[in-house]
């Protein structure tokens, strides 16, 4: 006939409550070990996490730009674009041809805009806000302000070429598909389709563009591009892609060094954190173990009385374990409470200088 464990549990609980001062001391001792560890944990995750998030969230860190211009044909670009570590790739036309003068009805100004080739999946643009065909463009924030236009409004684009000794100017009506977020492009610019860029380049080069009714020479069919806009799938793919381009003989500019620096710092801090965590956990176990031991030793007589009235050894073994469990759970809870309070203070102190919380709860 075994004594239900419930009785041992109930007695252990009664004892724990009866000795609340002692229990409280054990709980505090435990929280004193755990609390600072949690704060360190929070700081590590907060600071490094924010840096990594910034790296990941900002697509510019994933951009890979050729240093100098080359001659890339469609086939080559398609091969590169098909790589699994490439998330976005569009060709660039010659930058001298990639500008246009824009004006609107709402503003007297005429602004020269850089044209950025864009397409489906452009990481700089919110999904759904895409340039299309030769008429729909996405304006940068600054130029939209200067021209005082918003989505759905129309613009007048104009460009000039020197053709057979004469200066020729053409106009084309454009529609604002959307205004890009300010951080997408800081200068005066417009995201346009590759088709529009090719059309403008053809015009500037003196070739005929029948679809627009622009006359000129008949051009060759083999178009090459001097450059491209490329974004890696993730920041972790940047270094690999850089090496791949170097192997192909294309020198590229990347943020790989910045990424590597942050990743290195993350690795170092993680290692330091783990060292501290292991020491802390060791201290936690030691504290809990010492508490268990001290309790068994202190209560040797009471435990022997339980044995005397017929409690089995296993039931009695539960007695200190139940109490250690209480201490563990309460100590943990108290440490968590302290941590939350400290995290709030630290975040409040840092709020003025940083946009992201330094201390993050473990649940994040």
């Amino acid at each position, binding site marked *: *006939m*075994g*004594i239900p464990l419930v*009785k041992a549990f109930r*007695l252990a609980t*009664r*004892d724990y*409550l*009866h*000795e609340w001062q002692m229990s409280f001391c054990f709980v505090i001792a435990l929280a004193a070990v755990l609390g600072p560890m949690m704060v360190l944990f929070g700081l590590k995750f907060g600071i490094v996490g924010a840096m990594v998030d910034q790296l990941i969230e900002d697509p510019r860190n994933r951009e890979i730009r050729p240093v100098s211009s080359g001659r890339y044909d469609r086939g080559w670009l398609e091969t590169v674009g098909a790589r699994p570590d490439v998330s976005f790739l569009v060709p660039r036309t010659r930058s001298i041809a990639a500008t246009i003068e824009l004006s609107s009805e709402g503003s007297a100004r005429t602004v020269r805009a850089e044209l950025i080739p864009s397409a489906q999946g452009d990481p700089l643009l919110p999904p759904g806000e895409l340039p299309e065909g030769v008429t729909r463009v996405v304006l940068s924030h600054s130029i939209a302000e200067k021209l005082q236009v918003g989505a759905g409004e129309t613009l007048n684009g104009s460009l000039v070429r020197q053709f057979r000794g004469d200066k020729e100017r053409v106009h084309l009506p454009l529609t604002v598909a959307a205004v890009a977020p300010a951080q997408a492009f800081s200068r005066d610019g417009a995201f346009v389709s590759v088709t529009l860029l090719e059309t403008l380049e053809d015009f500037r080069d003196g070739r005929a563009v029948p679809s627009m009714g622009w006359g000129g020479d008949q051009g060759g069919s083999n178009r090459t591009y001097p450059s491209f806009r490329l974004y890696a799938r993730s920041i972790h793919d940047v270094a690999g892609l850089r090496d791949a381009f170097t192997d192909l003989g294309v020198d590229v500019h990347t943020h790989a060094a910045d990424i590597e620096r942050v990743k290195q710092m993350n690795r170092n801090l993680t290692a330091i954190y783990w060292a501290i965590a292991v020491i802390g956990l060791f201290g936690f176990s030691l504290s809990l173990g010492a508490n268990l031991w001290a309790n068994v030793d202190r209560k040797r*007589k*009471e435990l*022997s*009385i339980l*044995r*005397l*009235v*017929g*409690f*089995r*050894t296993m039931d009695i073994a539960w007695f200190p374990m139940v109490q250690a469990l209480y201490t563990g759970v309460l100590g943990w809870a108290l440490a968590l409470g302290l941590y939350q309070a400290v995290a709030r203070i630290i975040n409040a102190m840092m709020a003025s200088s940083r946009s992201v919380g330094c201390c993050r709860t473990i649940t994040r």
Partner: protein
Amino acid sequence: MYHLRDVVKTREAEGVAFRLRVPSLQIAMGEKIALTGESGCGKSTLLDMLAFLLKPSDTGAFCFRPETDIEPVDVDAYWKAGKLNQLGDLRKRHLGYVIQTGGLLPYLTVRENMNLCRRVLGLKPDGTVEHLAAELGIADHLNKLPDALSTGERQRVAIGRALAHKPTIVIADEPTASLDPYAAQKIMSHFIGLVEELNITVILASHAWRYIKKLGLRQLNHRTVRSADTNLTETIVSG
């Protein structure tokens, strides 16, 4: 009730050995046994063995028969087979134990302390605890914690606890040693009176033989011998 033959318990510490030898011991049901002698002579050792708390070093025979209508239990065989839980169950069902310093659980009230053995056995409240408390003169203290009681009162609670589940045998190890002689005598007479009323076998260790004798207890013979080189103290108990 108890049948012991050639039971030996040897203890050794820092080169000094102590041996308790029981060539033969028979205790019948309803008997009141007294075990006297100065402290350190092995009284507690014998009581602990009789309560199945201490394993004998060597055993000729050790049988326990709590009731006449059941077969005797071979305690030695239980020890040898490591059946500690079965020994615990025997203790729980048939034994009451009063220790020298009361041994009350400080976090339980007097009532809960007295009820402890009954609770462990799953017995329902039937007024026994209240009756015993009244008999022992502690009825007013039932809802107090042991800390609020005097030493004498605590000892009465301990006696009440040992009797509340109506065991077949009560073992008491110097239950009045920490009390003044007057209080000791009073409590002891109460104790023996209750034991007789409930028809419980009692084994009592005490160093105060003078008034124990008056209560009509049978004294176990014992003698202590010290070996020539004084490294071994041996107590021989029989009865």
